[in-house]
């Protein structure tokens, strides 16, 4: 049910945005938005009223998601939203230099993140803290960069996730190369790369599709179209829905409601299965919305409508699952309390991890530039250490 090169235009029949509320992406730009976006088919299993829509194709892919599993997905989303809020608070309190909130994108990240196997490998951008959570990251590690204590928070091999990429789009090539390595190893794991709508304009992302198609690499291009690239609306980057890009490279693609955690899980699983069985790459466009600022340094009121935000608040990814759980009698006080307790505990652990983070030593500035000895750097380090030592109080006679 993916939009592939043999069936251009084919897509899921599971629902589409009603014309009136189509995310047009045209706010605040002189460029026409992707005009037909609202008419394009979108995979959706749970709508924003919390109604579960049956879907012949995708239901099979989430058949194992029973009530308990749905509760777990909801818990995940609550927890990562809480992590996001706590980190934002830490920034406001001066404990972090900067923070890129994922508010609104929980379903896209949890739905896809929970589909992965531990031996899959993720190459993400800077906003995928919920994916890192799914990978089992130590909580404090996601703050290290933003507190200014490191250029990356964790050892990528411990959770099979590269540390956040700041150069827009660069990581899509890393994922593709990694996936080429998977082929050579004869393994059946998959590389998954996350990037934004803005990133699709970068040469790197398009070249990654060329290489992925050429080598039939087991890589998933997971694009979170959150409608904004800082102040630039998606309509500036793409005149037609982003998912249509991939088939032109020979890569099947699918457009999914990025605020529907179940649908995100389903399409990611389908793509993973294709990749594992030698079917090559898949492109997923998760249509979602950045409800917060680009980062805590950004002021979105300068460039976007309050109305747009309101529209999207009505499609909140958490609220719809809460409604669904409620309708299934799965949102009882015990469960709700447990979820809240979990979120509280995670937030406390996050804060504690932040505040207790050890400070780097001056000499760390020279470490790990090279893995082998380097004469230039050793000389500089030696000079600098002698310089720092020159500030130490001179040894005094008669004292110990």
């Amino acid at each position, binding site marked *: 049910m993916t939009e592939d090169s043999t069936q251009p235009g084919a897509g899921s029949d599971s629902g589409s945005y009603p014309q009136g509320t189509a995310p047009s992406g045209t706010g*605040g*730009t*002189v460029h026409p938005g992707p005009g037909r976006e609202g008419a394009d088919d979108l995979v959706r299993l749970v709508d924003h009223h919390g109604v579960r829509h049956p879907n012949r194709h995708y239901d099979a892919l989430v058949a194992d998601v029973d009530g308990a599993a749905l509760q777990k997905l909801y818990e995940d989303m609550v927890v990562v939203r809480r992590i996001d809020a706590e980190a934002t608070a830490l920034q406001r309190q001066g404990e972090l*230099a*900067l923070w890129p909130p994922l508010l609104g994108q929980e379903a896209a990240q949890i739905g896809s993140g929970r589909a992965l196997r531990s031996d899959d490998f993720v190459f993400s951008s800077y906003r995928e803290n919920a994916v890192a959570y799914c990978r089992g990251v130590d909580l404090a590690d996601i703050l290290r*960069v*933003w*507190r*200014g*204590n*490191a*250029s990356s928070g964790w050892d990528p091999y411990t959770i099979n996730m590269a540390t956040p990429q*700041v*150069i*827009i789009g660069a990581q899509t090539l890393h994922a593709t190369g990694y996936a080429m390595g998977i082929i050579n190893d004869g393994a059946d794991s998959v590389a998954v790369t996350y990037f934004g709508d*803005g*990133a699709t*304009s*970068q*040469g*790197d992302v398009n070249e990654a599709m060329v290489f992925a198609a050429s080598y039939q690499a087991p890589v998933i291009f997971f694009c979170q179209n959150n409608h904004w*690239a*800082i*102040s*630039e609306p998606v309509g*500036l*980057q793409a005149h037609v829905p982003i998912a249509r890009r991939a088939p032109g490279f020979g890569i099947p693609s699918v457009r999914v409601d990025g605020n529907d955690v179940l649908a995100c899980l389903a399409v990611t699983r389908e793509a993973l299965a294709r990749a594992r069985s030698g079917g090559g790459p898949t492109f997923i466009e998760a249509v979602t919305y950045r409800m917060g600022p680009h980062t805590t*340094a950004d002021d979105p009121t*300068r*460039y976007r409508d309050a109305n747009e935000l309101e529209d999207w608040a009505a499609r909140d990814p958490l609220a719809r699952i809460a409604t669904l759980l409620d309708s299934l009698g799965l949102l009882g006080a015990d469960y709700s309390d447990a979820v809240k307790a979990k979120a509280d505990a995670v937030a406390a652990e996050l804060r504690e991890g932040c505040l207790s983070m050890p*400070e*780097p030593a*001056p000499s*760390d*500035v*020279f470490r790990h*530039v090279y893995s082998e000895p*380097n*004469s*230039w*750097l*050793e*000389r*500089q*380090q*030696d*000079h*600098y250490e*002698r*310089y720092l*030592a*020159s500030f130490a109080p001179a040894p005094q006679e008669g004292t110990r």
Partner: protein
Amino acid sequence: MSTMTFGRAINAGLRRAMDEDPKVILMGEDIGKLGGVFRITDGLQKDFGAHRVLDSPLAEAAIMGTAVGMAYRGYRPVVEIQFDGFIYPAFDQIVCQVAKLHYRTQGAVRMPITIRVPFGGGIGSPEHHSESPEAYFTHTSGLRVISVSNPQDAYTMIQQAIRSDDPVLYFEPKRRYHVKGEVDEAVDPASSDMGAAHVVTRGTDVTLVTYGPLVPTARDAAIAASDDGVSIEVIDLRSLAPIDFATVEASVRKTGRLVVTHEAAQSGGLGAEIAASITERCFDYLEHAPVRVTGFDIPYPYSKLEFHHLPDLDRILDGVDRALRRPNSLSGPETEGAAL
């Protein structure tokens, strides 16, 4: 004369250039409605329209490559690179096209493109937001490279850069955007030469050469040193390619000692070119080898360590002491490591 911030001065200079020449067009990410992440282009799209201030899709190579096409068509594009560390996707277009088209076409095609780059560190940002890539461009024939250190120069030189028929990299010291200064907006950009270095502080013992963000630091160093009886002549290069070596040479012939300081890594940095050129020109006048006080040969570090990387007043004064053969951090026997 009015008092304005550094950032505001660039804005005013851009505005005047756009007023005077309808062919001046601004291109870049988030420069329109938002006015740029540093607000340097604030209000310009509103006043000049979206056809003169273009919010570009997120692709630096394309921004640069379409600017080349615009220049072919007779425009004078002013490109904003959002942060220093994001200029590299445009490197190919800069090095192979912007820098070479005039030469390639034997002068038939001009590339009056200005590339604005907020650069340098000290603002507590994550990776790629604090780099000093100027030496890549000063080594690229066909480009001119300038860096400004105060609001008046920022105002005047952005106009000179735009008026130049050669491509100009205009490096803006982002950590100084909020510094205020007097700006004479009536000044005629044609009345001065953007290629000339400025002697900021006169002195007789040591010549201290720098540019951009470290000019205020160098000035402070000169003040501190004078308390100590050392007279430093501070030179603000302003033009990094070509460098006004005549001015530096005249100073070093007088002082016999040269210290160069910049944030960029030492090896292959601009300090090397300045040391080499001045040694060639002033060998018989030098009392000591030129001293470089620079960032280390490391990727720009995370913010908790950045002030261990950036030259500051104390490190500059230590370098001055070295040039004067006064006691300094390297006095005494060299260690093993230092002899590498």
